[in-house]
Each structure stands twice: as structure tokens, then as C-alpha cells.
């Protein structure tokens, strides 16, 4: 029955592609709608909006999951959310926050700003940019559908085998995890390739590597990390899928398999992953701190070097998640030392931010407040990181709340605060309006205080012996009181996030009248109108210095153009990536439900659409100089 439905849908699908629809007037209305524009756009700025708001949506979903967790843990013996239901919530909280909130929020900011910062008109592969987004969208949708269709995954965001195998996780939950992450992972890999090629090939004339802003550098290195780390996850998910769906024996001891292989594959991906979500944060902080200290970033070359070293070392430390599995003292020592070494380049960065601020003219607006909140909070997370990097000590810390405290300090204090900072900083460039500063300050303070109230006590919870991933604990005053305080703290974060949501909504009720350079910025994105026009730069700029825009402002001249005013080539919109992602979604769904006919149909549709794309012959369109000049006259009038 399902097969029949899917085949019918597929035939309609193909018919729609090949005939271009049957009702011309309806088709025209669709083609001119905002929804169609966003589905088919290849403009990096619109794709940024899609990523950003999808990320905000999943941040709220993950936040609700966190509220549920802390509600359960507010008192010992609570029956609010127990057993497997609790396990599903903690698994989805981690999975959603890392894969479906943090990464898309960063991709949103990167897509919006990176091409502008290097003086480019778009990313290298506009089609793939659209494709990457819809793959993420459908992967995230697939994983979250598990809530409604059979149960969410419940083996933790790390999904260790043998727990994740059929014997101990018989429902479809883990399958949703595997297929959803596999699909969205392909999207992430594609976007990483896009950013790397953009940075290498599409910088404006004179924009050498060592003149690029730190946000661009960290995006570049982070994308390289994605490139080399995600294949390990791809293989791990593939092997888990084979074990669960097709009876293979990779992780099953009784047939010769090894559960440790999953841990290796997962953490060879997983450790670089946390650097993937912190390096762009470092880049945002560098840009924000230098702009709002009205001072050039201190030690730029060492910042670049430190970023590269962190990226490189990030691949050499994954075993520090496995200190207690019995690999032995030699392994543990090597990886412990390598882990501690990463603190050095990170420390260099922290000192450089502080030295940037020293002697600067500091403006305490919301973006800067979040950056200032980031620095001590992230350092606290880094310090506990060095503590758990010691194998002998980690035997005590492993799987306790101490680790939970450590990574929330780095992830929230680091990643989330930087995303907030970047949001307030780049909102005018992305949407043509500023976020309200008063609401922003309320957002900052409630969120910061709530965060510390929640997670600082968790260090003691860990030291007093509370393990992680448990839905209740002994009724002793130490554990009960600390958990109570921790749960109260989430109110602050929830209120802060709510204020942020209100701030976002009210910003869209105002006119889009932000100036090109509302913050007296230093980098190229502030040289174009807010929001940027579809072609970004009328003429590509000629770069002669670091912080060229700032330098030009100081000397009172405009940035020199690198080319004469000419016709600008733009790529055409396309609906093919949406269809390709939908096809993979159908395939994923087929695999999860063991409807292999549906899976086959999905895969075949995917490959057919790929073939159609190969034969496409769409050279895009041009914007002529007269149209550009006309817009200029209107603006001046």
C-alpha cells in the first residue's frame, strides 16, 4: 500500500518536473510567491535567513527539552519524566542542540557574512548552497518526526553500541537518529566544501589570506574540520544502520564485532565537531571585540596561527572521550598530553582579545556584552576541560555531572553566547534593522545569570558523585539542594530566550531603515547597504590593507573599485535541490520503517534528479549597469 502511494507520488513528481505544471495562472502565482522564492533561492543571503531561523526553531525545541530535564531533576524521586521517556528527552536535547541548532545558526551567519567579508558576490556553488540547506532541513525533520512516529532515539546523543543495537533498542528511535543525521550530515559536508572553495578562489583582488577578517578565517578552518571529520560519522552511521537493518556484525561481540569501533568512529568525528562549533564563535568574538573596542585586533597573525593549530590538534585528541574504556596507560597518556596542549593556542586567543580591549574605546552594547560574557565563561569551561584532560582524574569525572558542567560552560558560554553576539552585531546587515538594545540587555543579563545559576552548581554535583543521564538521585541534602538551584537557573535562560524572541519579532515590525554601517565597523560587510543588494557589490573592491574599510574611512576616501561598472552575472533559482532532498527524506523514511521498496524509490528519484541536473543548461541571468545606476539614483533622490 505504502509502495503504491509512493510510486504514485513519484510519477506525479516526475510529471511536474517534466511538464512544468498544467495551470499557467496558478503556476505564475506560485512562482512569484515568497515561499517559492525561498525554496528555490540560490542567494547566499536568503539561504542564510533559512538556516538562521531553522536554527532558532531547533534551539527552542532543544531548550524545551532542557526545561523538561531540569523539571524532572528539580527534586529527588520526581515522577514527572522517568525511564525511557527521560532517555529520549536527553538524547534529543543533545542531538538537536548540536546538529540542528548550533550548526545551522553558524551556517546562517557564515552564509550571510562570509562572501561580504571577502568581497565576493556569492559563494562558489550557489546550487549546492541551496542543496545543503534542504538536506539539513529534511534530516532534522526526519529525526524529529521520531517523537510522533514510534519514539525518539534514547541511547544518548553519542548513541553507543551495544546499547544502540536492536537487542537493547528494538524500536525505530535509533533508526531515526541514524538516517536523520546521515542526511543532514551530507548537507553539512557540502556546505563546508562550498565555504572552503569560496575563500580560496573568490576573494576580491588584494584580499590576501592574511587580510581576511577572523570570522572568515575561523569559518575556513572550521569547514576544513567538517571536511575531514564528518566522513568518520558517515561511516559510523552507515555501519550502525547495517547492523540494525541488515544483520551485519560490526558491533556485535557474539559474531566477532567490537563495540569500541563505534566509539572510535564517533569520537574521531565528535571531537573535531566541538571545535567546529567553537572556532566560528572565536571568529565572531574577534570581530565584535575589535569593532566595539574601536581598535585593531591584537596579534592577528598569532590568532590565525592559533586557529590553525587548534584545528590540527583537534584531530589528535579523540581518545580523551574514551579514557575509561581500557585502552591502557600509553594511549591515555599520549591523548591526555595532546588534549592539554590545545589549551595553549586557545589561551593565546583569550589574551589577544583582552589586549585588543586594553587601551580601546569600549562601547557596551548588547553584542559587546555577550562577547564580554563569553570570555570568562568560556575560560571557566576551558579550565575544567584541562582538569578532565588528565586521564587519572578523568577516571573520577567520567560520566558525572562534572563533565556536563564542563561542556555546557564551553557550549553555552562559548557557542551560544557568541551566536547571540553575532546576531545582535549582524542583524542590520542581514535584515536591514537593528535589534532593540534595551531588550538586548535584559536578554543578556537574565540569560547570563540563569546560565551560571544552572551550571556552576553542577560541578559540585559531579564531585559529590551524581552520574549523568540519570532521571533521579538519592534524597540527600547535598544532591537535592544543588539540583534545586540548578533547575531554578533555567528560568533565567528561558526568560532570556523569550526576550530574544520578542526582540526578533518586534524588529520585523519596524521599517527596514538601518544604515550600511551602523556600528562604525572595520570589515567589508559594512561597505554595502543594509541589507546587502542581491549582487552584493556594484563593483568588486580593491583591497590594499587589513581592515580596508576602516582604513578607507580614516583617510576619508571610498574603497577603490577593482573593476569597471559592468553587467553582473547572477545564477538562476532552482527547485531541483529541494526535490533531491525530499527524495533522500523519502528514502530515509523507507529505511526506518523497513519499507525497502519506498527506500529504493527514494534513492532512484534522487539519482534521476541528479541526472536531470547534469543535463540542465541554465546559464543564469545578468543585471545590467543601467539597473544598478537606476537604483543608485532612487537612493539619492
Amino acid at each position: 500500500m505504502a509502495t503504491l502511494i509512493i510510486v504514485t507520488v513519484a510519477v506525479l513528481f516526475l510529471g511536474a518536473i517534466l511538464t512544468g505544471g498544467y495551470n499557467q495562472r496558478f503556476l505564475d502565482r506560485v512562482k512569484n510567491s515568497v515561499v517559492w522564492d525561498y525554496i528555490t533561492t540560490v542567494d547566499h543571503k536568503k539561504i542564510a535567513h533559512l538556516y538562521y531561523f531553522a536554527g532558532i526553531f531547533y534551539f527552542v525545541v532543544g531548550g524545551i527539552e532542557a526545561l523538561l530535564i531540569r523539571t524532572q531533576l528539580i527534586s529527588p524521586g520526581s515522577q514527572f519524566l522517568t525511564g525511557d521517556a527521560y532517555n529520549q528527552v536527553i538524547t534529543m536535547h543533545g542531538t538537536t542542540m548540536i546538529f540542528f541548532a548550533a550548526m545551522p545558526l553558524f551556517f546562517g551567519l557564515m552564509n550571510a557574512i562570509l562572501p561580504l567579508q571577502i568581497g565576493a558576490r556569492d559563494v562558489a556553488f550557489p546550487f549546492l548552497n541551496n542543496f545543503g540547506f534542504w538536506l539539513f532541513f529534511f534530516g532534522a525533520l526526519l529525526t524529529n518526526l521520531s517523537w510522533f512516529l514510534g519514539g525518539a532515539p534514547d541511547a544518548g546523543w553519542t548513541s553507543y553500541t551495544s546499547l544502540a543495537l536492536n537487542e537493547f533498542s528494538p524500536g525505530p528511535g535509533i533508526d531515526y537518529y541514524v538516517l536523520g543525521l546521515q542526511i543532514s550530515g551530507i548537507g553539512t559536508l557540502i556546505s563546508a566544501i562550498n565555504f572552503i572553495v569560496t575563500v580560496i578562489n573568490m576573494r576580491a583582488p588584494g584580499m590576501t589570506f592574511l587580510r581576511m577578517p577572523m570570522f572568515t578565517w575561523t569559518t575556513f578552518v572550521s569547514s576544513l574540520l567538517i571536511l575531514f571529520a564528518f566522513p568518520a560519522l558517515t561511516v559510523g552511521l552507515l555501519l550502525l544502520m547495517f547492523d540494525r537493518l541488515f544483520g551485519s556484525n560490526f558491533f556485535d561481540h557474539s559474531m566477532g564485532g567490537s563495540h569500541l569501533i563505534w566509539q572510535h568512529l564517533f569520537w574521531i568525528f565528535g571531537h573535531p565537531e566541538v571545535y567546529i562549533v567553537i572556532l566560528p564563535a572565536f571568529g565572531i568574538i574577534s570581530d565584535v571585540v575589535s569593532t566595539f573596542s574601536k581598535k585593531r585586533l591584537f596579534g592577528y597573525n598569532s590568532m590565525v596561527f592559533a586557529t590553525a593549530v587548534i584545528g590540527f590538534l583537534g584531530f589528535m585528541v579523540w581518545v580523551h572521550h574514551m579514557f575509561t574504556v581500557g585502552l591502557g596507560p600509553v594511549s591515555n597518556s599520549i591523548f591526555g598530553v595532546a588534549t592539554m596542549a590545545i589549551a595553549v593556542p586557545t589561551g593565546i586567543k583569550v589574551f589577544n582579545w583582552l589586549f585588543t580591549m586594553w587601551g580601546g574605546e569600549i562601547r557596551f552594547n548588547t553584542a559587546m556584552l555577550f562577547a564580554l560574557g563569553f570570555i570568562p565563561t568560556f575560560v571557566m569551561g576551558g579550565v575544567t576541560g584541562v582538569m578532565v584532560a588528565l586521564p587519572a582524574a578523568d577516571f573520577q569525572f567520567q560520566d558525572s555531572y562534572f563533565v556536563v558542567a564542563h561542556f555546557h560552560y564551553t557550549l553555552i558560554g562559548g557557542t551560544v553566547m557568541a551566536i547571540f553576539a553575532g546576531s545582535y552585531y549582524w542583524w542590520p546587515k542581514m535584515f536591514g534593522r537593528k535589534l532593540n538594545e534595551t531588550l538586548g540587555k535584559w536578554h543578556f543579563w537574565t540569560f547570563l545569570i540563569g546560565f551560571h545559576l544552572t551550571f556552576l552548581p553542577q560541578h559540585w554535583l559531579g564531585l559529590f558523585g551524581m552520574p549523568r543521564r540519570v532521571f533521579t538521585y538519592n534524597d540527600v541534602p547535598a544532591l537535592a539542594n544543588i539540583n534545586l538551584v540548578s533547575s531554578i537557573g533555567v528560568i533565567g535562560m528561558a526568560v532570556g530566550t523569550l526576550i530574544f524572541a520578542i526582540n526578533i519579532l518586534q524588529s520585523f515590525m519596524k521599517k527596514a531603515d538601518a544604515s550600511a554601517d551602523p556600528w562604525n565597523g572595520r570589515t567589508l560587510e559594512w561597505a554595502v547597504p543594509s541589507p546587502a543588494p542581491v549582487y552584493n557589490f556594484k563593483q568588486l573592491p580593491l583591497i590594499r590593507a587589513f581592515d580596508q574599510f576602516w582604513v578607507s574611512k580614516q583617510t576619508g576616501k571610498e574603497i577603490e573599485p577593482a573593476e569597471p561598472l559592468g553587467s553582473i552575472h547572477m545564477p538562476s533559482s532552482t527547485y531541483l535541490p529541494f526535490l533531491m532532498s525530499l527524495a533522500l527524506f523519502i528514502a530515509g523514511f523507507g529505511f526506518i520503517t523497513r519499507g525497502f521498496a519506498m527506500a529504493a524509490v527514494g534513492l532512484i528519484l534522487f539519482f534521476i534528479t541528479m541526472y536531470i541536473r547534469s543535463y540542465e543548461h541554465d546559464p543564469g541571468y545578468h543585471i545590467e549597469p543601467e539597473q544598478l545606476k537606476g537604483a543608485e539614483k532612487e537612493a539619492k533622490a
Partner: protein
Amino acid sequence: MEKENGANVHNKSQTLRYVIAFAVMVVLTVIAFYLVATNVVTVQLLVPILLILATVQVILQLYFFMHLDQKGSGFPILFMFTGAIAAVVSAVGIILM
């Protein structure tokens, strides 16, 4: 050098380079198979020898067949080298531990 349609002596000599590289690869492959088929070397010595033969052949493929000997190949070489390091670290990690 003729330049009417882009065809020139340079490209014709490329063919020879490709065929020579191919011949060397075939020799390397034959050596590898021969060593295993005739069992002339101990296993301890065989593993590094086979790995070296394979690595040399791969480098030949990359440089001659995949055009990494041409200019403008800096970034591809850098990324393949980095990828190879990440690959070796990951593979060895999984095997040894």
C-alpha cells in the same frame, strides 16, 4: 608550438608520460603480487614493502594521472596530504585500539 586549436607538441608528449607512468604502475603491481604468490619474503618484511609499493603507485596516480604535477595544484596537494594524515591517524587509531 602550434596554437590554432590548442593542440600542440606539449599535449602529444603528455600521452607518452601517461603510458610510461602506467607501465611503472603495472610493474609495481606485478612485483606486489609476485612477492605474495611466491612467499619469498617473511610477513614482517612483507607488510612494509607492500605498503611502500602501494604508496608509490598512489603518488604516481596523483601526480601523473590526476594532474597534480601541473601548476595551480598547491591547494589540492595540501588537502590530499592533510586528508591522508587524518586518514592514517584514524585508521591506525581504530586498528590499534
